[in-house]
């Protein structure tokens, strides 16, 4: 319970909250510091220990060219890279660039989809961590101000 001990240091309030949680949720800590970072590079460094990633065409990032609505941007990421440990979504121009990070245990396919918020036009970066390194691909998604529907 290394994770549990680390969290314990954060004080009794957090501990009380955690004590009430199902144990499975303690399997991995929520990467609070990475989520709090206000720059994409800082978020990456915090999460992976490095902000360097190898561009890879073996990652497929499916995002719209122009978001219909910045509040709901569908994102799908899959990869043919092997031994994937995690997949993360980084939105460079969001106030907190790290949007989500998915831990991929052995047996789980490296193929995830979700819907995210984007404050403005930005590169969306799919970051894949494998047992050999950090890989990424990115695409720009335009976010526009709506007229009547938006």
């Amino acid at each position, binding site marked *: 319970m290394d994770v549990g001990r680390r969290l314990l240091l954060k004080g009794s309030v957090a501990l009380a909250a955690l004590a009430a949680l199902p144990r499975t949720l303690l399997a991995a800590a929520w990467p609070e510091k990475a989520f709090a970072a206000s720059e994409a590079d800082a978020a990456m460094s915090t999460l992976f220990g490095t902000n360097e990633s190898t561009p890879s065409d073996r990652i497929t990032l499916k995002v719209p060219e122009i978001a219909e609505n910045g509040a709901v941007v569908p994102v799908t990421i899959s990869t043919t890279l092997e031994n994937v440990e995690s997949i993360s979504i980084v939105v460079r121009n969001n106030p907190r660039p790290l949007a989500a990070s998915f831990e991929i245990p052995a047996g789980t396919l490296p193929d995830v989809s979700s819907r995210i918020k984007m404050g403005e036009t930005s590169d969306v970066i799919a970051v894949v961590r494998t047992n050999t390194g950090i890989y990424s691909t990115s695409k720009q998604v335009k976010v526009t101000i*709506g007229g009547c529907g938006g």
Partner: protein
Amino acid sequence: MKNTAAKLLLCLVPILWQQAAIAGPEDDRKAFVEYFQSRFPDVSFAEFANGIYAIDDDARRQWQDIEEFPPYEFAIEQGETLWHEALPGGAQLADCFERPADEIRPAYPRFDADRGEVVTLAVAINDCRQTHQLSALAYDSEELISITAYLAYLARGKPVAIRVPADDPGAIAAYEEGKRFYYSKRGQLNFACSDCHVTSVGLYVRADRLSASLGHTTHFPVYRSKLGGMISLHQRFSGCVRDVRAKPFALQSKEFRNLEYFLSYMGNGLEFNGPGARK
């Protein structure tokens, strides 16, 4: 032989009479459909039920992603629960409607000759509640919209077949009022519904493309991503009226009910596909 011919004639008379009599709205509808089909020759008639997604591919893909697991499923579920909830006295909402649940949505809007006005589904549900000593639900309430979402879901795939009875001057007047509303400019921007959704259909208003009016009513209520919740057709009307800087009419006001009547009739022959998901 004579007998058969007489029978045939008897059968034909009402049909012929009906066709001649509804020539007004039906002529309008045909011209309406033709206009949009000529503007978008690659879009099939049935596709117009999908609104803007019939004519914009990038938006369509995002919509399809959301339709993979649309947030309105929670509204359908809530609506189903409310639909079956016992009313005071043990009745259910279903008891007020003399048809199977999947045929209720398609039965509205309808012109009620006794009341002399258009009755929409939302009004009919509130009438039912009041008959059973319950207060009317607010027309923008989650509860009422959820019930309409559930009934819309049950009616998916059924054709829109709104009737404007030719022998009912009240119905024709209500239809004509809705039509006049649709084509009248209003507000500080001096826009009619038709200025955006007929003349400028497919063009951009800032970043939004204007949808075709053909099919506007088939998919409501809708989950609006922008709002993170469901809205009714009348809330959408209200939004459009506000967008042209006119003071919106009340939800389920006579003006909006007549507009719904006209627009629904224009969509005759399309399929109900609500509830929907919109940006």
